[in-house]
């Protein structure tokens, strides 16, 4: 139980002391940082190199063949063309809009229902059983039914992304709410906290770390479901672009589509993490790497 360790970005107001030592330490640290960065870049470069060798020599390995895999240079050229064309904007816009609505609705329902189910007996007993029945069904299995249920394919695709993101968010929220210490709740109630303030003042912030985890997992499954749905019923969208490239045998474009999907997934995950940090400046995840 040590107090006031001079570390952490939490406060910044805690004095670290010994200013005369810090420049030395800092330059050594930044030297290390450069070395690490170079190491990471090297790993990446090596992968691209292997890809290049395999693809340009059309290496057949029996169970797997690289005969139809486009080499990196070709992919780069195709990516450059796509970046110039107005099609890119249209595809991105369609996909992002679907994610925005699907994920937004999932966050709204997942967090709202999760807070109720985690806290209130009637909500737990009344709402959880039907959700438990639906939970093991993978979102992708909903595609045929949702095409039948929604007159527009837009609606069905948003629905699929919604289903994909809903359960991770819901379950993590419930888990977070159940983890709030009963002592903390008793203390709050003894300080005059009423039934509804308890949700905003104690339950929601107490569950916040778990909710953010749920959002970030949900964001991953959201993209997964969207890409699948677009491949089946899309008109535009980055998943549709990738599949269409396959059907017209534009193999380099397949890889471009894949990379764009990866980048979008990464970007939206980073956004969630950023949001979590902003929301919870007090929170320090435990553990680290050696």
């Amino acid at each position, binding site marked *: 139980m*040590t107090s006031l360790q001079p570390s*952490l970005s939490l406060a910044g107001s805690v004095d670290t002391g010994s200013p005369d030592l810090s420049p030395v330490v800092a330059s050594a640290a930044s030297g290390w940082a450069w070395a690490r960065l170079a190491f990471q870049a090297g790993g990446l470069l090596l992968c691209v190199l292997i890809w290049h060798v395999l693809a340009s020599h059309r290496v057949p390995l029996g169970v797997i063949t690289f005969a139809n895999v486009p080499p990196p240079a070709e992919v780069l050229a195709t990516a450059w063309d796509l970046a110039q064309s107005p099609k890119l904007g249209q595809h991105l816009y369609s996909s992002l809009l679907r994610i925005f609505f699907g994920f937004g609705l999932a966050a709204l329902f997942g967090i709202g229902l999760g807070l109720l189910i985690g806290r209130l007996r009637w909500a737990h007993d009344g709402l959880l059983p039907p959700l438990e029945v639906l939970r093991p069904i993978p979102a992708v299995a909903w595609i045929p039914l949702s095409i039948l249920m929604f007159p527009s394919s837009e609606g069905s695709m948003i629905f699929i992304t919604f289903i994909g993101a809903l359960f991770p968010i819901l379950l993590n929220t419930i888990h977070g709410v159940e983890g709030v210490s009963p*002592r*903390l709740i008793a203390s709050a109630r*003894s300080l005059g906290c009423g039934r509804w303030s308890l949700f905003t003042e104690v339950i929601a912030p107490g569950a*916040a770390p778990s909710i953010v985890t749920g959002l970030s997992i949900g964001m991953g499954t959201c993209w997964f479901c969207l890409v699948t749905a677009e491949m089946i019923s899309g008109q535009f969208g980055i998943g549709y672009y990738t599949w269409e490239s396959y059907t017209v045998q534009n193999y380099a474009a397949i890889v471009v589509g894949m990379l764009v999907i990866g980048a979008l997934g990464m970007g939206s995950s980073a956004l969630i993490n950023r949001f979590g940090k902003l929301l919870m400046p007090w*929170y320090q995840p435990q553990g680290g790497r050696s």
Partner: protein
Amino acid sequence: MSSPASAATLGHIDIDHLHIHLGEPGQSLEVVHNVSFTVAAGEFVCLLGPSGCGKSTLLGALAGHLVPSHGSIRVDGLPISGPHPERALVFQQHTLFPWKRVVDNVAFGLKMKGVARDQRQRQAHDLLNLVGLEGFENHYPAQLSGGMQQRVEIARVLINYPRVMLMDEPFGALDAQTRLMMQEHLLEVWSRIRTSIVFITHDIDEALFLADRILVMSPRPGRIIDERRLGFGRPRDGSLVTSARFIELKRHCLELLHPGGKHPAYLERLSPLGKVPANASSFSV
């Protein structure tokens, strides 16, 4: 701060033939058995008893979080009907809101009363000064030591000007030296803001050092088996613990709690209001 060391007129507790059962209906267990006692307004009472005898349960009922099965609890003549800021509850540790800065933790009670932000921050500052934590307003609880966190807890309940303070082993997790400091500090604060205090502890020295009167409970189901007015003057200091009378009382309490030097049978460690988290230290940074 309001009135100086004036005698408190509010905070009289009257417990009458109290029984408390815990557990699911059908297999419930009597935890508190026929307990009756009173606490005068402004009195400091310590409750001693072996582990699992029902101390926390009794306190939970006083706070209004548990409903007794028989008997009554009245504060200033009125039966209690749930938790209320007039009956402040202080636990061992880790009940500050980790997501609120120290000043907002302390101001929480006023926020619940609908006091404007400016005013509640001002009052919180005053109370933080009183407990010796000026300058730590903007820290998060995890950035404070255990002793400092307990000072924040005390400031946080005092902002409601409670009639009664219910303290459940509040210094139980502190090291010996910090604990002594906190005991003196509590007495100092209490001399300025006079409330009735019911203070639970395992530590006989702590009980004798703090209390006007001690109550000793039997193993489960808890009954009051001894009651003793201490009669030490105030203010108190460290020399008290070596006085002949103190040592005699300590021997008496030891005999009551461990008859014949034997330790009581180990009881399952359940708790009616939730346990202290096992990863207790993980809250510190």
